[in-house]
């Protein structure tokens, strides 16, 4: 049965959220660890895709180089006909080579992104470890709220922000069960270019 959308409306018209009965420091710790795991998994998957692209590009490059080598070793009799056919074919081959090199340059950039993303996870884990060692801190929902907000600022790429938002939905960190503000709103996609 659908709940009545007005049942949480307080007298003054503001939305009152029910107290979060699921809140506990242990659950928060588990959710923060799940966030780190999800960030690592996504970074690894992206890297795997980039490596696949690199393998594909280099494989195609090798094929093209072999074809060019075989062509150069062929004995042509009608040199004039071959010359024109070769010029057109050379242009096509050049475009193919260029496309594969460009794909490889894009894929190579995975390493920079991977190290950046793993750096963010490493910092999150060490900060979390220090935080939960302080029992006074870790028992207070408002301190968790501050921790999540601080760590959320680490996540700067569109993918990191999307993962943070999806997990932060379960990080209802304050006593009223309020969720953190979504980070992924208005993020620019990969490869986008904007001139001011």
């Amino acid at each position, binding site marked *: 049965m659908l709940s009545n959308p007005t049942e949480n409306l307080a007298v003054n018209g503001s939305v009152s959220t029910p107290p979060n009965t699921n809140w506990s420091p242990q659950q928060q710790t588990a959710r923060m660890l799940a966030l780190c795991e999800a960030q690592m998994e996504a970074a690894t998957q992206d890297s795997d895709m980039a490596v696949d692209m690199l393998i594909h590009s280099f494989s195609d490059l090798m094929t093209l180089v072999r074809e060019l080598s075989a062509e150069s070793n062929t004995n042509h009799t009608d040199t004039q006909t071959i010359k024109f056919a070769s010029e057109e074919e050379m242009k096509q081959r050049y475009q193919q080579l260029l496309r594969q*090199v*460009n794909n490889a*340059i*894009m*894929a*190579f*950039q*995975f*390493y*920079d*992104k991977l*190290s*950046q993303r793993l750096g963010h996870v490493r910092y999150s884990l060490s900060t979390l470890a220090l935080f939960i060692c302080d029992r006074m801190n870790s028992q207070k929902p408002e301190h968790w709220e501050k921790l999540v907000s601080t760590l959320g600022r680490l996540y*700067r*790429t*569109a993918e990191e*922000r999307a993962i943070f938002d999806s997990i932060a939905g379960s990080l209802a960190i304050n006593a009223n069960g309020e969720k953190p503000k979504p*980070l992924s709103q*208005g*993020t*620019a*996609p*990969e*490869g*986008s*270019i*904007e*001139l*001011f």
Partner: protein
Amino acid sequence: MPSVILAVDDSASMRQMVRFTLESAGYEVVQAADGIEALDYAKAGSADLVLTDVNMPRMDGITLVRELRNLTNYKGVPILVLTTEAGQDTKMQGKQAGATGWIVKPFNPEQLLATIQRVL
């Protein structure tokens, strides 16, 4: 004389990718590993365009843009920011500091070169 591009990034692999792309298109590339190194170069030498990352040790890219705009010979030089930063807030900071454009990594070599040609 080829145009000189100052490429600033703390990641050596990114600098290599940028250098390869730009040199293949005939540009001369000067590299710097952070904002301080880039600013030192800018004070002593000239560049026709600056391409900078944002998150770097010692001096970040936004501060570098601001500092470069304070140098007389860099007031009109195009400064493109090349970063993984996808947030609107940081982009607005870059715009306010005086950046010419914002490119989100990973860059597509053809699109990067087209953008550079457009702003040079």
